[in-house]
């Protein structure tokens, strides 16, 4: 089993046959559509959002075929899959020997992590060349926005460059040495580039650690997300924090069409009225509202579902195992499907159920053991 296989099993477990295989592909490759974003929150799978941004459909399908062939997945309806008993056992066995990615926060960090990492790579390369008195080098990042930010920071620091280089070094060392640091720092440090010392690619790291690229990627991402969480403490990590402090406001990215709908909502138009003006179906406007509820933490769903109905729906949802909308509807007939979805997504924003079965391994020191084992090459 590859790490990707294991992640897919976790997703299949969460979706429990309510969604097609494609939904899982869109989730982990990070397709930004209302449907995918809704699924992510409805099923408590938002932490997996865009964790494999470069995954090809082909590799995804190959991975699924492997799981089916091993009978880890069973097709209980056409094109609907659930994790089998064997699958559950295989998953448990897998995470006894591989670190579980507790710190993944795909939905919260996907954009921020990418930008932070690219900036950190290019900033380190620039500072490294600077303190080695070399001012010509090939940048390892070609993204103009990243280059612009690094150039700006570099110029801004002017007289503090050496001091800040040292600080950056000390902050990185401090975070890597933390007891709670979830994995081997190699997954971060070996990818970094300095003066005449070019970073390793994930593939080369996989070769080195004798594992597969999908494992290297998630172990890297897990540590990166851990770092992002830690450095929100800007007194302890002023430099690292400054690398990402301006990215925060980009958190709520709405699709263009949803953005338009939001403007009408802010002017207190009703769903029907907006649909009429925009010449769209009311169901489309409802999808937009769901998307907004997901994105904007402060968005109140009360205008669409009164408080007592919200409670009723949430109670019903928790009384059945799978949050299947039809079953909830049977229990609360007076609620519409739109209202049910709206309540589920707004309450699902803090759902952590995917990692609950593994929490015991976090404290038992197992991850420490796994860490040691795989770092010995």
């Amino acid at each position, binding site marked *: 089993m590859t790490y990707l296989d294991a992640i897919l099993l976790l997703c299949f477990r969460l979706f429990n046959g309510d969604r097609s295989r494609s939904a899982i592909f869109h989730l982990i490759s990070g397709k930004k559509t209302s449907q995918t974003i809704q699924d992510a929150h409805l099923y408590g799978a938002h932490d997996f959002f865009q964790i494999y941004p*470069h995954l090809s459909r082909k590799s995804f399908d190959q991975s699924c075929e492997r799981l089916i062939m091993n009978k880890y997945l069973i097709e209980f309806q056409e094109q609907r899959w659930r994790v089998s008993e064997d699958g559950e056992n295989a998953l448990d066995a897998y995470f006894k020997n591989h670190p579980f990615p507790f710190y993944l926060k795909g939905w919260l960090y996907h954009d921020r992590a990418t930008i932070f990492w690219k900036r950190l790579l290019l900033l*380190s390369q620039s500072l*490294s060349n600077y*303190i080695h008195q070399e001012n010509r080098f090939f940048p390892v990042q070609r993204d*103009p926005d990243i280059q612009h930010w690094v150039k700006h920071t570099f110029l801004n620091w002017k007289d503090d460059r050496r001091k800040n280089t040292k600080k950056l070094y000390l902050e990185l060392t401090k975070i890597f040495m933390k007891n709670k640091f979830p994995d*081997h720092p190699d997954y971060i440090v070996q990818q970094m580039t300095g003066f005449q010392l070019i970073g390793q690619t994930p593939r080369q790291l996989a070769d*080195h650690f004798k594992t597969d690229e999908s494992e290297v990627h998630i172990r890297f991402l897990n540590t990166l997300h851990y770092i992002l969480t830690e450095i929100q403490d800007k007194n302890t990590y002023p430099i690292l924090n400054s690398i990402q402090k301006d990215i925060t406001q980009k958190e709520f990215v709405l699709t263009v069409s949803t953005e338009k709908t939001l403007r009408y909502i802010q002017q207190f138009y009703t769903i029907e009225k907006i649909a009429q003006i925009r010449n769209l179906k009311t169901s489309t406007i409802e999808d937009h509202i769901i998307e907004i509820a997901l994105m904007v933490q402060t968005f109140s769903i009360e205008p669409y579902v009164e408080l007592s109905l919200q409670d009723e729906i949430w109670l019903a949802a928790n009384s059945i195992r799978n949050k299947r909308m039809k079953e909830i509807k049977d229990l609360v007939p007076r609620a519409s499907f739109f209202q049910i979805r709206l309540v589920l997504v707004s309450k699902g924003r803090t759902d952590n159920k995917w990692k609950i079965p593994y929490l015991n391994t976090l404290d038992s020191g197992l991850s420490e053991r796994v860490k040691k084992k795989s770092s010995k090459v």
Partner: protein
Amino acid sequence: MLPTGSGKSLCYQLPSYILHAQVLIVSPLLSLMQDQVEQIKIRGEKKVIALNSFLSFKEKKQALKNLQHYKFIFISPEMLNLAEISEALSSCSIRLFVVDEAHCISQWGPDFRPDYLQLGAIKEKLGSPVTLALTATATVKIRADICQSLKMASPDEWVYSVNRPNIALKVEQLSSFQEKIHTLKQFIETLSSPGIVYFSSKKLADELAEEMNQTTAKKISSYHAGLEQDQRILIQQQFLTDQLDWIFATSAFGMGVNKENIRTIIHFHLPSSMEAFVQEIGRAGRDGEKSLSILLYLSKDEQITTNLLELERPSLRQISEFEKIKHTASGLKEIEEKTGLSEVQNRVLHYYAKIETNHSNWAGHVNQLILKRMVEKKRKIDQMVTYVTTDNCRRQLIVRCFDETNSIIQPFCCDQCGFPLESYIGSLGSEQRKVITWQNRLASIFKENENDGWTKDY
């Protein structure tokens, strides 16, 4: 016509500074363009821009608004078609028009790019500035094509010999695929590196690179267009800084890579033409030191190369389908999805749709034209087979292919003339570059490992 890597870019950079002239450079490969731009930027020149599909909408708009302020404008041929681009270009005063890899213009060349054919018209629209066509490999026929397409009446031609005396030539005939792999491994372990092994299959390059990286003492990585850009940059830089011994690559690797000390080029598959072959081995020995080209040949290898060519050819059914939907489809992508054409095939058919009009049976006619091109391409493969099977001097054969008549007699020529392979053996026991611990790596990056003064300042 200049050998690969002999500083072609100087031919337009220098005049630009002397004449204070704005230069437009048409470049066919995105990765190559990025490298060229980075190389100019590294020199400290900031007024350089690459107009290609990597630019976001916002960046493109910004760049076009300020186009007249750039000294060097790199552009991909397909971008030249866009109305907004030609409008922006007309506001500039382009005084030097450069066509890089100009052999792409020729139908008979191995890398024919239909987009290149309109360059003549574009040049006239720009007011016919001085034109410089650059290529590393071109026969007389291709050179004639270039002059005609670019409307160059009586151009000055500088043609350098394709012969690179410091590169010895060898063909290794093998009797099975297993033996081929075994032989490759032996060469990798013994011959001088850095080196490149060329494959025509990404998958094989990946698999063998992984296997040999683990089972030999050499550091090996694969490189091809299937890798993400970040990874491609890292691997290229590792190779340039001698952190890698060998690159297992497809033909995507090499253009724009300025590395002087490449010692050995191995071809695992038969190249598709002598032009491609000469260009690829020409990446060795730019420092003038003794270097080596080895081609591994298994009888019927030409069949693999021919099959790849056949795969490139659109079927008559696809051509007809293309004809039917080309006016109603909303874009290139839709045509590709509906007909199963590749991007390149699609571009070729668009080109034929433009120039071959008034045919009652268009699809049949175009199919014939494409078949004719195939015949020509197969002839080129046959040329490579002759190179492999000849009993005579291989160097002499190469220069004849490029219509050069000089006769060459030199030491370390080719395996037919005889040369000692031992003199190309690399220093044994090349120290294995281990992955250092993260603590040491971090300390090296931030120069915390040595107490050399600056830490005291702090």
